[in-house]
């Protein structure tokens, strides 16, 4: 049975599935690289000591002194995973505001986005 999803459902589905696939791809690439380099997956990476997701993203884009490394790919995979529900909430907020003109749900999703922005980027 083929079902046509409503636009908001299609948008949320695409963000969740796309974000998850990208995240898993980055993590698997990082693990494969590590395996090739060291012959083992048992490593001793430091815990991510970023103050927030902004710090994590900055550390990923800045890279390591050696350039791109397996740890950067692993961190990027985790960062993409963290950003996926956040982007989904932002997209829903924009959808309700500009497409649906449902301002009640603009406010509701706006509140969730605001709380997440504070926790992930401003703390």
């Amino acid at each position, binding site marked *: 049975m083929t079902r046509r999803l409503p636009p908001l459902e299609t948008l*949320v589905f695409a963000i*969740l599935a796309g974000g998850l696939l990208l995240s898993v791809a980055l*993590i698997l690439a990082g693990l494969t690289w590590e395996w090739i380099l060291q012959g083992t997956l048992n*490593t001793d990476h430091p815990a*991510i000591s970023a103050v*927030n997701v902004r710090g994590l993203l900055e550390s990923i884009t800045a890279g390591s002194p050696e350039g791109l490394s397996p740890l950067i790919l692993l961190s990027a995979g985790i960062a993409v995973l963290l950003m996926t529900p956040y982007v989904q909430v932002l997209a829903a907020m924009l959808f309700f505001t500009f497409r649906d003109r449902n301002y009640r749900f603009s406010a*509701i999703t706006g509140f969730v986005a605001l709380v997440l922005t504070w926790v992930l980027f401003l703390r």
Partner: protein
Amino acid sequence: MADPGFLLIFAISLVAGLFGAMTGLGGGTIIVPVLTYLGVDIKLAIAASMVSVIATSCSSAAAYIREGLVNLKVGMYLEMFTVSGAIVGASITLVSGQDLLFVIFGCVLIGAAVLLFIRQRAPERESADNRDRLSCWLELSGKCEDRAEKKTIVYYPSRAAAGGPLMVIAGMISGLLGIGAGAFNVLAQDLVMGLPTKVSTATSTLIIGVTALAGTGIYLAAGLVDPDLAVPVILGVMLGALGGSFILIRSTNRAVRNYFMVVVIVIGIDMVIRGIS
């Protein structure tokens, strides 16, 4: 911290994800106690589990959305409450002692298993139109396909004003213990808001991801997200959950599920004893 090794954590997470999906409790409820058996600090285990909840949520919610079972409006309304609860819960974890966390985790595990056990036996209620003013104002009603009976079910969520604040508690449990707290989410949606069980289960998968993200933000800032632990847990729990859902859909034997539930209760009792002693 003991280093159990990537493959061991991955294998355990796989089983935990499978177990969690089969019982309906989620992988986090199993992986955190098991990691502590391996000598991992409970706060690191909670943080790793919390990140894995996001992955499980993304995959399950995407699948359920495609099936037309998620009520996005109900989910987004309830997320307002769960994210607030998750921040409070995760902040409490940071200042709590390990023993207290063991006791709370054990109690929640037992409570969630008992709740699911009771819910399994409760008959599916007919969705009646007894909306309150807030539910009407938010236009939360929806419809879903019942494939078994080949009909469309129209449902009307009720008591949104009571269901919302209840979800603060579900969010707090999630943030505190690094679990999805799906059992509590579903219960609030089922019993308080009167959603059909399939819809509440599906909508809960969307809510737990956003809730877990709020909790993860707190753990990330505290430096508790360890890639060596988080990566195998994310991959293992997610794959295990996919396998568990696959088996669950095709399994008609409730005895297996009940057996898993008893194991979960035993783990919960053991957690309480470890915390006290």
